[in-house]
């Protein structure tokens, strides 16, 4: 398998940025491929991690952040997106996405999953990414990475540890459904 650099963020809590060795705790746990920040009350680690798969990259980064003593809250990019976010992530124009969402360009754009009755609904990025991949508007890799972030967040919420094995297994199943589609 080829080693690739995967970029994502981990939002964490549970360590005070005021202590002298705040940053060193992350460095010593193997987060020297992340930029550590404290923003809006959260610890945010931006990773650029080399690994054989997105699943391995996320699982090993989560393990490192936990080894530093922090609690992992979630993986970003944020899985809930508006049409502007979708446009930025797939390189289409905002106008094109509005047409998709209204069904003017194609009929089966996924339905929003949150705030569906408001003027600013949000979509599940992994669902949209899969649809975009099927329309050849997004690379297969990007669709898999979107699903990996979604699966990792679901596994984190369920308390699955270590993350590596369940994540790898669910991603393999997802890739098979992409092949079949």
């Amino acid at each position, binding site marked *: 398998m080829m080693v690739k*650099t995967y970029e994502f963020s981990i939002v964490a809590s549970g360590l005070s940025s005021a202590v002298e060795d*705040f*940053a060193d705790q992350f*460095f010593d746990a193997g987060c*020297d*491929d*992340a*930029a550590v920040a*404290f*923003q809006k009350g959260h610890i945010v680690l931006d990773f650029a991690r080399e690994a054989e798969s997105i699943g391995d990259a996320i699982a090993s980064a989560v393990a490192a952040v936990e080894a530093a003593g922090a609690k992992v809250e979630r993986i970003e990019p944020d899985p809930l997106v508006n049409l502007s976010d979708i446009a930025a992530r797939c390189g289409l124009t905002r106008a094109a996405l509005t047409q998709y969402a209204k069904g003017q360009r194609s009929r089966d754009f996924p339905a929003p999953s949150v705030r569906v009755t408001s003027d600013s609904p949000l979509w599940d990025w992994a669902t949209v990414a899969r649809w975009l991949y099927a329309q050849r508007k997004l690379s297969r890799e990007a669709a898999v990475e979107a699903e990996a972030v979604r699966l990792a967040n679901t596994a984190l919420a369920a308390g699955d540890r270590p993350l590596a094995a369940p994540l790898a297994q669910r991603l393999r199943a997802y890739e098979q459904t992409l092949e079949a589609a």
Partner: protein
Amino acid sequence: MAKRPSHPNEEIEAAVSHAEALGWSWSKVGGHAWGRLLCPHHDRDGCVLFVWSTPRNPENHARQLLRQIARCPHAKQEDDGEDL
């Protein structure tokens, strides 16, 4: 402004200078971090960003810093004069 040392990596140094142009300030910390950047909003709600002395990959680290700086909701508008 207190004089700070230059970061040995050119791209990281450029990212730190960019932060300073937006009103961030640098302070020294011990250990593996070469420094700490505080955003213009200097209180408990402000952003704190750590810069490694020896990140695993300096180019990636410089890009990460720029991205985190861009995410800060408290930044002053950069001056029009782009005198880098």
